């Protein structure tokens, strides 16, 4: 039997979403801040423009998580494990999504896919950075390295839900979130699982802050997606989870139709300047959704504010849409760049855009770049859209794109 043709694939319902972001706790708050154009990017003690979950929010969430049955299950298995920011924000976002979807638990015929590059990094990076062979002190580092493997957080989240079904952790850099969604769509459409919980989580760390700084990729101001004077990204942290199912019990927020995954094979960190890999992933997502470029109403871009990303992505979008004057936006100036989590968190914005019939603007896009021939949508406005394309590009030349539709679009 050959793989199902695009027309045969049923769209997948999104029954619930959950978000923790620098704006605060909850998807509605996240949405409201985005609609009202309020950025949660702030300067840190080093003057860097970053998006950080507030200490107050973290404290309240941690208290709740520590008292939860879910955390008790994790501690029951690993009694030496301390609660990390990654645990706190992912379990909080997960709980919101599950609650919204009306899923009281995960069953063994469900699936769980997580996207992250940092995992539990804050648990071990300091110990590793300060490790010295001469000191010969292995006790502390042992406790830290026990949870270094990236898959640990997937394991903990599964245990927290008493879940033994198929699970996967995707770590294809900044494209991981959309790749996770694309794969979840396949798992559901092929019948591998009945429902699928997909999430992304990322936390700020010395590793990423210093690393991106060494690349001179951090902007010295609020990011300016696609702007002529753009000068880099604002790193951020957060978690976004989506509950997906083929047969939702009640009207879903929106539908996930299909996804595309492709590589640039060009450079380790810079995107292919012609955007060929990204264009291929977007075309694949559109084809596998059984629609054409004419059907797409809006592209929610990766639009990080980096010189190279935005230029390459613009070329990619132009290559896919040809002469069509497709509306595009980036919300990175609102919430920052959450690396692997950006794919799921920003997809949640796409889902809510479709549900609430609102097309988001692009905060801090002030001066058009003549080399970027895109219709950047600056202002948030009502728009009863049918199909939205979410695009991402990642280090290592990884690309991912997914198509969402309004419920009942076809």
């Amino acid at each position: 039997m050959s793989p199902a043709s695009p027309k045969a694939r049923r769209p997948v319902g999104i029954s619930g979403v959950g978000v923790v972001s620098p704006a605060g706790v909850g998807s509605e708050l996240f949405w409201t801040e985005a609609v009202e154009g309020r950025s949660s990017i702030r300067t840190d003690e080093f003057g860097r423009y970053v998006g950080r979950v507030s200490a107050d929010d973290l404290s309240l969430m941690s208290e709740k998580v520590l008292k939860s049955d879910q955390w008790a299950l994790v501690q029951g298995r690993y009694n030496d494990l301390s609660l990390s920011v990654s645990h706190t924000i992912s379990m909080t976002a997960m709980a919101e999504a599950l609650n919204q979807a009306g899923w009281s638990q995960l069953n063994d015929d469900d699936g769980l896919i997580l996207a992250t590059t940092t995992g539990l990094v804050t648990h071990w990076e300091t110990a590793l950075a300060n490790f010295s062979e001469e000191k010969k002190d292995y006790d502390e580092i042992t406790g830290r390295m026990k949870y270094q493997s990236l898959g640990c957080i997937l394991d903990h989240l599964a245990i927290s839900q008493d879940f033994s079904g198929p699970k996967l952790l995707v770590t294809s850099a900044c494209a991981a979130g959309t790749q996770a969604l694309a794969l979840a769509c396949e798992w559901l459409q092929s019948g591998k699982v009945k429902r699928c919980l997909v999430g992304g989580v990322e936390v700020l760390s010395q590793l990423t802050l210093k690393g991106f700084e060494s690349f001179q990729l951090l902007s010295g101001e609020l990011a300016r997606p696609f702007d002529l004077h753009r000068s880099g990204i604002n790193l951020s942290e957060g978690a976004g989870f989506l509950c997906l199912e083929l047969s939702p019990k009640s009207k879903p927020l929106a539908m996930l139709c299909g996804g595309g995954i492709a590589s640039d094979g060009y450079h380790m960190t810079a995107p292919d300047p012609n955007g060929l890999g990204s264009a291929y992933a977007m075309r694949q997502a559109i084809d596998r959704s059984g629609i054409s470029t004419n059907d797409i109403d809006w592209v929610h871009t990766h639009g990080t504010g980096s010189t190279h990303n935005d230029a390459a992505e613009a070329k990619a979008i132009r290559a896919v849409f040809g002469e069509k004057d497709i509306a595009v936006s980036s919300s990175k100036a609102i919430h920052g760049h959450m690396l692997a989590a950006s794919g799921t968190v920003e997809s949640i914005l796409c889902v809510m855009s479709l549900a609430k019939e609102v097309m988001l603007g692009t905060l801090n896009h002030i001066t058009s770049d003549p080399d970027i021939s895109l219709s950047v949508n600056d202002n948030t406005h009502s728009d009863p859209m049918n199909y939205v394309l979410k695009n991402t590009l990642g280090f290592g030349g990884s690309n991912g794109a997914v198509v969402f539709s309004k419920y009942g679009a076809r």
Partner: protein
Amino acid sequence: MSEVYFMDGEIVEAARSQVYAKQPKFRRASRGMMLGYAALDSLFRRQSWLYKFVNERRLGLVIGTSQGEFETTKEFLTTLVEKDIARPILFQNSLHNAILGFLSIEFGLKGASMTVSNQMFSGEDAVSTSIDFLRSGWCDACIAIGLDIKVEALSPVWKNLDPPTVNRGEGAGAVLLVNQSGLSDISGQTPLSRLSSVNVSEDQSPATLIFDQYYDSNGISVFIEKFRNNPQSQKVIIEKPSGCSSYFQLEAE
């Protein structure tokens, strides 16, 4: 359910990375990248039809790694602390996805590709994701690599954490899989077997083996070795040091 075929496999021992260490092309490559390169290099030499699939974006790549670029990450962080320098090359190489990035560039891979990580099942997850890719039609051939690097300076840590039956090492294993569409396009090639699924079992029973040169993502290389010893197997079971296991469900051709 559409068929997936197991065409070829390659086990890469740790020492093979030495072959590349002095070559200019690998001056910025980590040991993980060299091991991944060795796996792909061998497969491409034996299966030259892969080049056609590369040109048509029909070759996928999934890499499974538990600890990723652990050594590079350590070097980046310790250089930061000791010398207050954040080295860009080290950061670039410290992402789990960096190995895939390097291999994509070296082999011109532009098809569907992904890096996955799931501790001792990282290799297995790479294979089962490859199967998903092939069944979905994202690609018609797919290579799954399970790869992990050992950081010598941290050996005492693993001695503390691992059961006494484990002697940690490093290495890579790769399998080449195709779907029906891919198979029909490669003449004169007979699959070694079908591969229906890769499953993991987290039920723990006491592990009976000694695990020499063990690394978390070695499920693929153990599978290849066991398969070579018994090519008629219907099912290849892989025991893990923790007492869990996985199995590759095959059907003999």
